[in-house]
């Protein structure tokens, strides 16, 4: 019974997402949903290092940039097929993450956050200044889109990837590796005292997290058809962190919910004109203060209270 109760919201959400393109008469919402699904992938990656391992990384958008530029430039310069470059994108990002993760993970807490922030800044500076390759701040236009830019088809591609990678994140979380990641979050010294090489697991989480971002970036590039360095700045990395915190850090459903929030909320608030960003900021501050366990955490607590009360009545 409990298992059905746990699976039911997932099945309902999946069914809703599957029929969404058929019921949406305004394609603008489909556009936003595709962006949100891309952000689900990016946020699930962020959750692996931030939510499960307890290391706040501020380079997720930078890794998105590596994936986006990697896929785009391989396609434009080597004429590789789009699907091949999209598969290559997370692998290239993984190489960068390996190179940056090894030194970064030697420090902890705020220091790790600052090191990764610096990496994001460096990535943007390189993208801006290496203009012979990246076309600098002007960006790259006319990036090939699959199925001639058919948004409905792209939606299902993004949905399939978001669902699969959410499933993969759940598998990792429930595996022995996931348990060690959680243990690192709780007490890294204790993990080391047990003879476990914590750095290997941290590096694993960091690299997988970057691969998620790299794939998200490649999807973004081939969906929008345009990229420039600004899209992959620190502000977007903070959005990835927010998505995890708002939805529920260290949960599987949390980043998915948070991703939809960070995409849809600023758009919904457009009615407020120039107060939009003030309102958005206010909502985020209030949510972080009063909902530190995120939407999923609150929902779980409410459900637990409800079931306890019913059990109490029954007894």
């Amino acid at each position: 019974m409990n298992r059905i109760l746990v699976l039911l919201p997932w099945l309902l959400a999946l069914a809703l997402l599957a029929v969404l393109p058929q019921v949406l008469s305004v394609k603008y919402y489909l556009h936003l949903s595709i962006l949100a699904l891309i952000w689900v992938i990016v946020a699930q990656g962020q959750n692996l290092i931030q939510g499960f391992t307890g290391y706040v990384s501020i380079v997720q958008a930078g890794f998105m940039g590596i994936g986006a530029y990697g896929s785009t430039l391989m396609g434009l310069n080597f004429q590789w097929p789009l699907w091949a470059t999209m598969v290559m994108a997370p692998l290239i990002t993984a190489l960068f993450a390996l190179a940056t993760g090894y030194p970064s993970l030697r420090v902890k807490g705020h220091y790790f956050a600052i090191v990764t922030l610096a990496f994001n800044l460096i990535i943007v500076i390189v993208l801006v200044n290496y203009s012979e390759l990246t076309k600098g701040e002007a960006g790259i236009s006319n990036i090939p889109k699959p199925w001639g830019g058919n948004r409905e088809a792209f939606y299902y591609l993004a949905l399939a990837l978001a669902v699969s990678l959410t499933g993969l994140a759940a598998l990792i979380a429930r595996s022995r590796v996931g348990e060690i990641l959680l243990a690192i979050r709780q007490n890294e010294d204790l993990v080391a005292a047990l003879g476990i090489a914590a750095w290997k697991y941290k590096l694993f989480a960091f690299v997988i997290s970057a691969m998620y971002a790299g794939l998200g970036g490649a999807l973004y590039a081939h969906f929008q058809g345009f990229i420039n360095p600004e899209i992959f700045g620190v502000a977007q990395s903070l959005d990835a962190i927010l998505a995890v915190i708002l939805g529920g850090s260290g949960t599987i459903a949390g980043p998915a919910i948070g991703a939809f929030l960070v995409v849809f909320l600023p758009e919904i608030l457009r009615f407020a004109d120039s107060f939009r960003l003030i309102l958005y900021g206010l909502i985020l501050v209030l949510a972080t203060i009063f909902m530190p366990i995120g939407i999923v955490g609150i929902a779980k607590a409410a459900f637990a209270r409800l079931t306890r009360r019913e059990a109490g009545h029954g007894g």
Partner: protein
Amino acid sequence: MSKHKFTRACAALALTLVAGSSLAAEKKLTVGVADALTGGGAVYGLPQANAVKMAAEEINAAGGIKVGADTYKIDVIAYDDKANPTEATNAVRKLIDRDGVKYILGFCCSGSTSAVASFIGNEKAVMLVGNAAERSITTKKIPNLVRTRPPADYTGQAAGTFIARKGQKRIAVLGALDVGFYAQYVDSVEREIKKAGGEIIAREVFSLKDRDMTPQLTKIRGLNPDAILVVGYVEPAAFVYRQAVELGMNIPRYGFTSGSEEQFLRVTTSEQMEGVWDLRPTELTLLSASKNGIAYHANYTKKYNASPSPSSPYAYDQLYALKAAIEAAGTVDNTDAVAKALRNLAVPPQVVMQYQPVDGKMFDVNGQAYTSNGAFQWQKGKWVFVEDLPSDSKAYSQFLSTLN
């Protein structure tokens, strides 16, 4: 006719008149504006959005847009794109997909504009670009895109000739050189200076949010240049001018900023600005303005209680160009016909900027319009138009056509 019948006939007549007048009542044409209404780009984007709204009110007051027997009154929806590519894409998707808008104006900043330009060719919509100066926006031959502002390097070429003529040989550049169109401007200046035997001796960079430029200026001062050239957004450029004076750099200061007096005086004093040159398209300043320009300045100032930025008429002119194109095409629904009409449009009489038509048309085959370029100098608290800069719009148009 009985009294009742007469009353009924009168009522029927009144009803017919009311119904008739409502049938003849104007239709509504909604145009969209996607621009930076907040953030760093808002110094350009907000005045552009205001300019479009003002133009719409003027056109409506003058009877609207006439298409055959119909008259359209213009309604403007403006969305903030924060000069961010993703936000701009979202804003334009909302305008097209949800609001059903076919004509989108504004676009002050190059990154966000390029993002929208990358897909607008597939839409049944027309995009009119304003202040965004990145050259590549009009090199892709997008049939439903036109731009009122000339690319930065078109102006840079004229600016380089002007600086060379002034006799300065060793020029130090300080600017937002990581922004593509500013770098293109400087490259063009350098080409012209080199022809006259001069050189660029330094290329120092500042970013949009930088406020302390003394490190770069101190380094430049050590190189002993003949002049400095400042390219970038208004606020950081104003800090450069101010700090150059504070560091005792008594050399000519050239710039490419397009800021209004009001915008500069928020950061510097008039004394610190005295003698600064702005080498830019002949945009709006009261001394260079035509009759339209003077009226625009007065109306804008009255309506918004602030002076218009010099570049804001690029957006104002967009709406008058669109009106003329719609009337020429005889349709509001067929965007292909309107886009085609824009390409064949003579410069409408109501525009503010001083356009240099190519083959008699406001927009060339690339969808690019050209204004004259001018040398403006800060004199006693005002930008004073000093002279026209030599600019060949036809030759540049041919050059632009060779790019892709």
